[in-house]
């Protein structure tokens, strides 16, 4: 227990340090007060955006893992990333680069809305059927991803190189033009989500015991699952639309937190995996800025997440 306290304080401190580093790193070598103000003004929305997305993805992943009773699956497998990239590609393709970020708020609402609709359709179609429910849902998500990636590849190959560059920039989390208004819309949603999550924490723990045990202890299992799937759809959609594809981030931080704290207490898990998510994202962005953007953050998260996943699988010797 004392060890846990130490770990908790450690992570909180680390988070604070990373946030400060992120905000100040561009200040190295800057002299004027004006420049200082500009930098902070630009960095702050990005910081908020990353925080909001990181926390939303983490909570969605936690909820998702308790439903599927499996530590290696993440909600991004339902296809959010692919849907998001597809939407962005189609927009550029149909409207041209100029119109692309014309109105980020419309873009945001459109993307979020479409992602939620597609997911809800998938739920509707799949969850009537068999017992293997959620796993099939995932497979369909992966097929959807392949299908959309196919289409995106095709469209991207007939785009002009300029359009392609704009697309890549728009999709990645370089956040060069993070709109503060967007973040301010997303922020209260995130806070609501977290509060809801916190209240629901115990129920989520019971759900993670499996369907039969959950019903035995008095939960309306089916209702709870649907409620949580909708929650996942909304959080993932907002997070992805705000900041871009986040793939395995949830996988990494939730599993890492579980390994560090060795607990099933969802209140602790959400707080500290959320913090870890923020740390990861900020570190990632900062490193990319230092090294010179050789690639995008989603790709790195993908890579690290994937390797970590295989590590877990091999260590536990089962799936």
């Amino acid at each position, binding site marked *: 227990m004392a060890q846990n306290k130490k770990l908790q304080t450690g992570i909180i401190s680390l988070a604070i340090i990373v946030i400060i580093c992120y905000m100040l790193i561009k200040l190295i070598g800057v002299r004027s007060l004006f420049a200082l103000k500009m930098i902070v003004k630009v960095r702050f929305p990005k910081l908020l955006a990353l925080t909001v997305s990181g926390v939303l993805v983490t909570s969605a992943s936690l909820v998702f893992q308790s439903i599927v009773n499996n530590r290696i699956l993440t909600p991004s497998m339902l296809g959010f990333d692919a849907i998001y990239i597809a939407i962005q590609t189609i927009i550029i393709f149909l409207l041209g680069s100029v119109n692309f970020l014309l109105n980020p708020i419309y873009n945001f609402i459109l993307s979020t809305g479409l992602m939620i609709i597609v997911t809800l359709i998938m739920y509707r179609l799949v969850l009537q059927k068999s017992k293997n429910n959620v796993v099939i849902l995932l497979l369909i998500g992966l097929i959807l991803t392949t299908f959309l990636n196919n289409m995106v590849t095709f469209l991207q190959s007939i785009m002009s190189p300029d359009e392609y560059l704009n697309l890549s920039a728009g999709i990645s989390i370089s956040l060069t033009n993070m709109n503060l208004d967007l973040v301010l819309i997303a922020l209260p949603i995130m806070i609501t989500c977290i509060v809801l999550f916190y209240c629901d924490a115990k129920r989520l723990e019971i759900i993670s015991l499996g369907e039969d045990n959950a019903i035995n202890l008095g939960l309306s299992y089916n209702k709870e699952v649907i409620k949580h799937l909708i929650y996942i759809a909304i959080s993932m959609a907002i997070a992805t639309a705000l900041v871009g594809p986040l793939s395995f981030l949830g996988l990494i931080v939730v599993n890492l937190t579980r390994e560090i704290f060795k607990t099933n207490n969802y209140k602790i898990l959400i707080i500290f995996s959320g913090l870890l998510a923020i740390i990861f994202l900020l570190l990632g962005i900062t490193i990319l800025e230092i090294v010179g953007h050789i690639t995008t953050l989603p790709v790195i998260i993908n890579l690290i997440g*994937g390797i970590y996943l295989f590590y877990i699988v091999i260590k536990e010797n089962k799936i």
Partner: protein
Amino acid sequence: MIKRNIFRRTILISLFIILFSASTFIGILDIKLIDLLKLDREAWHNFLYFRIPRSVSIVLASAGLAVAGIIMQAISQNKFISPTTSGTISATQLGMLVALLLFPMGSSFVKFGFAFISALIFSIFLMVILNKIKIKNIIYLPLIGMMYGSIISSITSVLAGMFGKLQTVQSWNVGSFTLLVKGRYELLYIIFIPVLLAYIYATKFSIVGMGEDFSKNLGINYKSVILLGLVLVSIISSLTYIIVGPLPFLGLIIPNIITLIYGDNLKKSMIDIIFLSAIYILICDILARTIRYPYEIPISFVAGVFGSLIFIIILFGRVKYGSK
């Protein structure tokens, strides 16, 4: 029973001949049978230079991928594994990128070599991991495979990004038969070798799929047969990817359809697999070329769309009846 199979096979072959001819004669450059019979030089030139290579490539590529798929399914005893769902295609892509970076002027052969080795190494790695762990639900397998594939793709992405080759890599992902003219597609003929070997070793592959102890009991060298299977699959995957591009899900859906009808006996169904896959891809090809006539939609897109839909249908079918 045998009569039914012969009947089915006749239908398959007839369909194949019809579609093959259709595919060969459709296109921007109209070729009419009359012209060929009249020994019109231009008609024959188009025929031999564009059409025949194209149609032959289609058949070879699809047959190869379907056979690769069924080999993989046999040796892993899992109906959902295929080059698309096991990261093999992504590995091939990585190999090609490495070849491009190290030998920018390299021939197709060099590309093939790197692609093949990359596909083989990553497949072996996956197989080793899968053997060590207990999988509770077989549906997890394609999930793992596709995640594995996306990890490899990330590596490729990072590498490509570092050297500014991102869009080049993207262009490889577009499967198209338009570039298949005489002189560029001959490498595909190599596919005959792995397909033939697959036929010869069919029984061994089936046995090996039942486990190491089972195979040893029957006197089969487990490790070498698995290795042979993976080598054949890697050859086929890299060859088809380099020359044609990806044909998503083909190696998954065709074997599944065939085994649903004919059962798991590889030797018996090999020929049907080849014809059915050719028919499937010929249909996709004809659609790809006629839907937006005279423009051609990449075959990988059409195959991807149909492949996904058919995969979902198969998925529901198999899960409902609880079969493996």
